[in-house]
Each structure stands twice: as structure tokens, then as C-alpha cells.
């Protein structure tokens, strides 16, 4: 009788231990996913800061990877304004390329902490 009881108890302990092992395996898998997401966020943050320069003045702006360049342009025009003829100004990167208004921040290749220029597309006189 005693032996049977001991066997039952041991089997119960084994079952409990196996359950805990399965839970631990799930926890490890979840932790791996969390780490991978954290690494991805570190490499390509969803939201980040950029600097916009206008006539020698730098201002910081928060942008999201999926928002349109137009959104940042409007914010910058307001922050540095009032600016007349906003359609004559655009956002430019260091290489001198004008960012397209209808592209996302990500598609335009904007990186965290990048310096962008708010400036006229053309300066002329006559």
C-alpha cells in the first residue's frame, strides 16, 4: 500500500514538473520574441527625433516612421512661421534631395536624429 502511494505521488510530481517545463519553454520563447522586438525597435524605432534647420535656427520634432513627410513639413512651417508661400518651401536632406510630401518618413529614408533643412526650393531675382 505504501509503495503504491509513493508511486502515485512520484507520478504526480513528474506530471507537475513536466507542466512547469512546458510553461518555462513558453516563457523562454516569449522572452526571445521580446528581445527580438527590442532589437528591432532599437535599430528602427517607430517614433524618433529629427532636427529641422531654418535660417540658422534648429528645432527638434518627433516623427513616426509611418507618417507622411507632409505632416512634418506642416509642423515645421508652423513652428518657424508665420512663413509666407509655404508651397515654395520644402524639406531637404544633407545630400540636397527634397523629400516628397506624399512619402512616409521611412520611405523618404529619414533616420533618427537626422538634420533636415526647411528651405526654399528656388531662390531667384530679376
Amino acid at each position, binding site marked *: 500500500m505504501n509503495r503504491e502511494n509513493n508511486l502515485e505521488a512520484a507520478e504526480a510530481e513528474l506530471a507537475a514538473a513536466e507542466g512547469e517545463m512546458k510553461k518555462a519553454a513558453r516563457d523562454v520563447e516569449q522572452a526571445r520574441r521580446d528581445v527580438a522586438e527590442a532589437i528591432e525597435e532599437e535599430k528602427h524605432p517607430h517614433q524618433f527625433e529629427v532636427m529641422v*534647420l531654418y535660417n*540658422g535656427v534648429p528645432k527638434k520634432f518627433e516623427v513616426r516612421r509611418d507618417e507622411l513627410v507632409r505632416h512634418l513639413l506642416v509642423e515645421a512651417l508652423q513652428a*518657424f512661421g508665420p512663413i*509666407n508661400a509655404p508651397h515654395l518651401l520644402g524639406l531637404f536632406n544633407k545630400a540636397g534631395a527634397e523629400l516628397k510630401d506624399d512619402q512616409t518618413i521611412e520611405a523618404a529614408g529619414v533616420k533618427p536624429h537626422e*538634420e533636415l533643412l526647411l528651405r526654399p526650393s528656388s531662390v531667384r531675382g530679376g
Partner: protein
Amino acid sequence: MSATYRLPRRILDETFAHFRGCGHGRRECQVLWVSPWDAPEIITKAVHPEHEAHVGGFALNDRWLNEFWFTLARENLGIRIQVHTHPGDAFHSPTDDAFPIVHTSGFLSLVIPNFALGPIGFDDAYLTEIHEDGRWAEVAMAERLILT
């Protein structure tokens, strides 16, 4: 903002030298008067932009403009007044109105007549200011520029 700027005589001399040396009495030319953001009322430098020009107009080099925008921030400078020449009378043309380098209200644009070949100074020059609604309006030289 309607600031009054103090302009050292040597900067006016440099400006006319740029106009004459670059335009040769045959092409328009532009100079930008800049000052530090912590003392904006004192003009400290005349910047001669890279540009293409002809007898009746000019256009800044886009690559130069991009680099200059970084330089301004690095050196804590702002453009206060754009200055350019005309072949004859000084006034603000529709192109001058539409394509200034700075579009914020209070920005000044000075036009020097006769390719700057006349006496160094503001004789027959034309000074105008951009307003919040985008319109330009002439302003009295003495109210906005003091030669020092």
C-alpha cells in the same frame, strides 16, 4: 518683427565690390547680409552666394544653398537682408517678390540700381519688407538701416 539693423561701412563696401566684380556692369548679382542670432541687429558679414546670372536676373546654386543652410546653423547666423542689383531702376519685380531666400515676415530685401556702378551707398536704392500675408511693402531706409 520690424528690426532696425546696424550695417558697418566695410560691409557695404564689400557688397559693392562683389556686385561690381561679379556682375561687371552686365549681370545682376546678389549678396546676403547675415548676423548672429544672439545679436541680430548688428550685421556681421556679407555673403556672396554661388549663382547664375544674366542682365535681367539671377538664380542661386541649389547645392550651395543646401550647404549654406547648414553653415548658418553651425555658426548661429541668420540672414537678415538680401541685397541684389538691377540694371536700371531699383524696385521689387514679381520674381523678387516670389522667390526670396527667407519667407518670414520682417525679412528685408534691398535693391541697388545700375548694377551698383554708382556711388557706394543707398542713393536711389529700394528697400522692402515682407509681411505676414506675403505681401511686400516699401520701407524707409533710415527706419531700418543705420550705416555705422
